[in-house]
């Protein structure tokens, strides 16, 4: 399904180049063996994350406005209904401009299609879940802080606040061990393989013999059941279809090591 999406986007975006925004800073991450909350297979508990680059900050409304200017087919008044629901960029002041108040805030209300197109225009792509999770496992001082109760509680504290207040500026939160900002406590983030994260809609079904009704990697149940912070992120991603948008769903781009951008 993802491959088909990518192909459609390539058509939609065309071959026109999109100059990287001057402010984009991509941090190199070495990767390595990693124990995900979503193991690759029931008997395989770890995965290997290849070296990759990840944007240090979330994509802002201003960044996205620049993309929309060059690719007007992604304006909210022109976007194909297949690629974005009615909430797409609805919070912007106009079809072309977010307005000064929110220019520096992370862009939200974007569909997976739009986020993918943005990254592709930059010669990049959305991060894959394992890459995102690898980078997001870090605290300010440790590459993998997931067993630190204080770190977990700090993430949960974000869930304990309603989504009503204004978002902070993109890149405003402190950098983690890898130099990446905004991974927690700001917005949810699209990942490239969001569409294949078919964890069961009813989280209590884990171990149910029927779980094989979901294809491929979606048949997996969650590991690390006390890692509520990650569980909720996966629940959110699995509730979203690729055309959906949400006031708390943003994104950043990634690239293979050496690919730059």
């Amino acid at each position, binding site marked *: 399904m993802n491959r088909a999406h990518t192909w459609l986007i390539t058509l939609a975006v065309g071959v026109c180049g999109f100059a990287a925004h001057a402010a984009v800073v991509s941090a190199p991450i070495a990767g390595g063996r990693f124990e995900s909350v979503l193991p690759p297979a029931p008997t395989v508990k770890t995965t290997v994350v290849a070296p990759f680059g990840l944007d240090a900050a979330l994509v802002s409304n201003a960044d996205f406005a620049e993309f929309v200017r060059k690719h007007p087919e992604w304006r909210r008044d022109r976007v194909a209904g297949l690629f974005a629901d009615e909430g797409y960029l609805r919070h912007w002041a106009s079809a072309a401009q977010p307005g000064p108040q929110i220019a520096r805030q992370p862009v939200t209300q974007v569909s997976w299609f739009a986020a993918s197109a943005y990254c592709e225009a930059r010669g990049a792509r959305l991060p894959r879940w394992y890459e995102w999770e690898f980078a997001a496992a870090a605290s300010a001082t440790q590459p993998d802080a997931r067993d630190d109760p204080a770190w977990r509680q700090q993430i949960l504290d974000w869930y304990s606040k309603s*989504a009503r207040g204004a978002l902070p500026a993109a890149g405003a939160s402190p950098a983690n061990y890898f130099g990446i900002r905004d991974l927690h406590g700001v917005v949810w983030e699209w990942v490239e393989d969001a569409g294949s994260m078919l964890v069961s809609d009813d989280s209590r079904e884990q171990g149910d013999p029927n779980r094989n009704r979901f294809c491929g990697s979606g048949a997996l149940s969650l590991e690390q059941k006390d890692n509520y912070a990650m569980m909720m992120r*996966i629940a959110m991603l699995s*509730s979203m279809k690729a055309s959906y948008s949400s006031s708390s769903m943003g994104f950043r781009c990634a690239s293979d090591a050496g690919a730059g951008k």
Partner: protein
Amino acid sequence: MMKNTIAMLMAATLLLSACGSTDSPDSSGQEVSHHPVGPTGGSMKGDLGPPQGDPVNAVLTSPPLVPPATNRKQPAKVIVELEVIEVDKPIADGVTYTFWTFGGTVPGSFIRVRQGDTVEFHLKNHPGSKMPHNIDLHGVTGPGGGAASSFTAPGHASQFTFKALNQGLYVYHCATAPVGMHVANGMYGLILVEPPEGLPPVDQEFYVMQGDFYTVGKYREKGHQAFDMQKAIDENATYVLFNGAESALTGPQALKAKTGQHIRMFIGNGGPNLVSSFHVIGEIFDKVQYEGGTHFQENVQTTLIPAGGAATVEFHTEVPGNYVLVDHSIFRAFNKGAVAILEVSGEARADIYSGKQGDEVYLSDKLSNPAAVETAALASASGTLTKEQQVKAGEVLFKGTCSACHQDTGAGIPSVFPPLAKSDYLLADHKRAIGIVLNGLTGPVTVNGANYNSVMPPMSQLNDDEVANILTFALNSWGNNGGAVTAKEVAQVRATTKRAEGAAH
């Protein structure tokens, strides 16, 4: 009211007789059960055919209100539209919490349908929500209770349809991962599936639901409080509340009724963890449909409501005053907020409950001779205290303070409270004895060859004179070998031993 009741009862009796019920109004004309004595047949008897007439929009109410009876005689298509909203609201005075709600309240909106109804359910997740949500209704027959069919991203709406096959009172709740956290944040409510003949009419119906909450800050710690995952896993609740806030049903928000009313309460327990010992102080439930089922128990003081369960309780108000709803796992009521008030107004009924009829001085015979204590205290102050005075004062104090456990004979109670009479443990070490009276004693001791393992609290209320007198009495009674303890010795021990923190008799 009574006329109405009888008319309804007769109508119901007609209906019931068709079902082969043996219920009928009793000769006194008092309310009798509407419910069949035998089994209802469950879901196999619950399909009452296709929906008839125009679709009906369900009336949803916020707690503590209950929607009116459906008053329908045939199955209908009922449309329920429930919105999920994440809101910041007070959980206690000066304390706010981000609740995730069905309909903006904790518990969520009350849903009332009739057995056999076809329910078209619309779950709308507000665009401002941070989380995806869904709903599992315990009144649904089908996998997940609707959970998978209603999984809804923020800013979206889902629809599914079920037939309400089983009558009863059912909990609904969110089942999105992590389920416990969604429930702990207030995502639960009740759906009543009326029996085909409806429920007997009452004067008032209320909707109350208990839930436990877990905050990073302590109970009543001011400010906005975040969910504490570890406390939730440990089942160590910070708050146990009725209707989602400490003041939800107290003060101006108290439930209100009059004397002479039939009250029905639909009581649910959302959990996520704790089972409720539901009790109304000063009332007795005439009827409890325990676990929300069909059959009932009568004359119940306290009823157990499981997490994810419910009960329908009914009682009749006779005497005016405040009736307090509590979880009788009672520290939850006094230290975690599990209190609600039902204010009953009306004429006093002294024939049923008099109120306070007198207050006079009462002297226990155990402290019948305070004069001896007084004499000894004066003598001690003037430096003329004799051992005989000490023993006399000590005897009085012993009877008031020690004899409940160690007995008037000093023999104690075998294997529970050690003896003082001819006690090797007492006689061996006076200083140790002083320390025990002052600071208490917990744990195993061997006295006269027998083992004891219990708890004696510190006797913090006794002054040095009194401790000295009690011990002198004990050393000179029941065949013990004499000796005396002075107030000075007690003062020394008091000064050199550390008191248990917060210890009090």
